[in-house]
């Protein structure tokens, strides 16, 4: 451009004679105009190029975009929402692009149901700085939820002394924008300041709305549960809260979806800490007592009848159990019952065998006995006496006295010291 200017200006610079002044002036004017036009043209071209180029916008992968033409979202149906990529729009003021981060999940912690903690309470605990727990909860600074009481303390609807409990909890909400059009149209966000994108202001702007709705959902859900249900951290309560919150968000057409509602911390009030801990300890101890009793029961049954004890007992009690099944169980017995039965079996065998042996013995002897009864009897008798006398520890033979007056004999039986008295043996 500078070169061009020079080219046109050079002829003027040396200065022409006065006669040519008018002509020269006219010429100069037209030259100036020409130059102006050229400058203007260049400016226009540059402007148009800048105008067109300024219409390019990048939609990031985690974003979706809406195009406003004269303030109205353009397109029909699904075309209203643009996916990621390079887009061209008519520049301001005709069209405007609004980029909304849809894929990005945001976390929002809610600590407004927690008791007030002084700054020093967050410091590591040392024995000297014991925290004094206030006796009451100040409704202005302390947060909490009200839970219902156990059902057995039922209160009628018109009574004044309704029963309820207090619980502290902390939550975390994870949400994302799932309907960019609804979100943009309905949900208030601050205007982006220069240098800020719409996405930057969203998180900060929706915070109050979400906090309020979330707290409402928590309060509404919590009154339906007892403190024990709440503290045992059942999945049920976060699900309930999530459902309530999503319903409200849908009803107001906010375009926000709840990804999750998490109960990050929950506790009973510090004021009743001791009673709750005692209760937990009691239930643990109770469990211990019961499991000990169960151990005892198992041992006892095992001792009585071994592992099949329980099944056998059921079978015996249940009259519908078929006999065959019971018969299958009996052989599996162990323990004292088994001893009894085994003993009786041994007895049976012994009795039968003895009877059989005796009978056989008799049968064998009979023919001989019939032939020579006296000898046989004598033989058996003598053998027996011999056997007995051989085994007898002490034998004392006394000469019978003649005459009428009896004689007294005293025998000192020296018991074998190796043999213990019966009573002692039992011990």
């Amino acid at each position: 451009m500078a070169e061009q200017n020079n080219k046109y200006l050079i002829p003027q610079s040396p200065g022409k004679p006065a006669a040519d002044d008018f002509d020269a002036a006219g010429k100069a004017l037209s030259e100036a105009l020409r130059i102006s036009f050229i400058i203007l043209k260049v400016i226009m071209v540059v402007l148009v190029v800048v105008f067109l180029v300024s219409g390019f916008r990048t939609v990031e992968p985690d974003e979706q975009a809406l195009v406003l033409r004269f303030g109205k979202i353009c397109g029909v149906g699904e075309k209203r929402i643009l996916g990621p990529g390079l887009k061209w729009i008519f520049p301001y003021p005709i069209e405007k692009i609004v980029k909304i981060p849809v894929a990005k999940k945001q976390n929002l912690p809610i600590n407004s149901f927690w008791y007030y903690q002084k700054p020093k309470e967050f410091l590591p605990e040392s024995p000297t700085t014991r925290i004094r727990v206030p006796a009451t909860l100040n409704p202005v600074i302390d947060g909490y939820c009200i839970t219902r009481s156990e059902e057995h303390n039922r209160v009628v609807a018109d009574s004044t002394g309704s029963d309820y409990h207090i619980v502290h909890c902390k939550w975390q909400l994870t949400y994302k924008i799932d309907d960019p059009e609804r979100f943009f149209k309905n949900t208030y966000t601050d205007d982006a300041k220069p240098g800020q994108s719409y996405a930057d202001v969203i998180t900060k702007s929706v915070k109050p709305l979400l906090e309020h709705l979330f707290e409402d959902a928590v309060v509404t859900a919590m009154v339906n549960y007892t403190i024990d249900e709440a503290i045992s951290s059942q999945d049920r309560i976060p699900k309930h809260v999530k459902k309530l919150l999503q319903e409200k968000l849908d009803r107001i057409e906010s375009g926000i979806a709840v990804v999750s509602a998490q109960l990050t911390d929950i506790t009973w009030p510090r004021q009743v800490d001791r009673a709750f801990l005692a209760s937990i300890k009691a239930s643990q101890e109770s469990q211990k007592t019961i499991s000990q009793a169960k151990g005892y029961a198992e041992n006892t049954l095992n001792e009585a009848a071994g592992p099949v004890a329980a099944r056998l007992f059921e079978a015996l009690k249940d009259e519908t159990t078929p006999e065959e099944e019971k018969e299958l169980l009996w052989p599996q017995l162990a323990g004292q019952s088994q001893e009894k039965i085994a003993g009786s079996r041994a007895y049976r065998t012994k009795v039968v065998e003895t009877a059989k042996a005796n009978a056989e013995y008799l049968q064998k002897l009979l023919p001989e006995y019939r032939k020579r009864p006296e000898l046989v009897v004598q033989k058996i008798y003598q053998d027996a006496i011999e056997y007995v006398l051989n085994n007898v520890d002490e034998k004392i033979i006394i000469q019978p006295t003649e005459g009428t007056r009896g004689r007294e004999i005293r025998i000192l039986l020296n018991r074998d010291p190796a043999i213990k008295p019966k009573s002692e043996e039992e011990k």
Partner: protein
Amino acid sequence: MKNIVVTIFIVLIVAVMVLYFISFQVREIESALVTTFGKPTRPITEPGWYFKWPVPIERVYKFDSRMRVFEADLGETTTKGAVPIIVNTFIVWKIAEPLVFFNAVGTIKEAENKLLSQLSDTQNKVIGRHYFAEFVNSDPSKIQFEDIQNEMLADLKQPVRADYGIEIKTLGIKQLKISEDVSKDVFERMRAERNRRTEATIAEGNAEAVRIKTDADSKKTELLAAAEARAKAIRAEGDAEAAKYYKLLEEDPDFAIFLRNIEALKKYLEKRSTIVFSADTEPFELLKQMPDIKPKK
């Protein structure tokens, strides 16, 4: 050629300037109100491009039509039955009718002032209609917490729309609390309830343990009795079977009894026995004298 370009350029600039004065955009997120000589004439709730007379004649006021949150202060009120309760109610609202809104309130700040008094009124009125036991109850079916919120919403919705052109999208109670004095009583109750529960737990545990033990003991007794009965039956079987062999003994009962006695004798005197004999008994008589025996003829 030059002229055409210049003309287009100038026309464009002029057109843009003119359009700037006589037209305006209403975005999706707002509604607008056009006033003619200061008098509201045209409310616009649909987004788009609109024309108007230039400024001295017509003016455009724009209102953000998106939802805003507004909360009342934490306030103590009383339920039916005069139980004090502390609630914090909020509403989500938006400007629905720009004309009414412009006439009645005009600015967001003013709107919030009006909403505050309306909301407090409604809150006190509706809560006063319900017993505390309808907020929280040990019987979940009697809890009407959500209904109470809906009732407040219904109570507020119509008048606010008619009076201020404000639409209430939703209403909620974000804090439900009790006064500081009452919290002390609640703790007392919670403590008492918990202590009672502790005692009950211990008692139940002990009772259960005793039940389990006695149950096991009685099962043991029954099992042993059953086993005893079975053992007896087996012994009886043995005795019965043995009895079969007794028949064989019938052939000579005396001899059989003799044999049996011999067996018994052997058995009884097997151990730890001391026998005192008379010297007259066989074979000890041999100790006295030679036997008098002669071969049989």
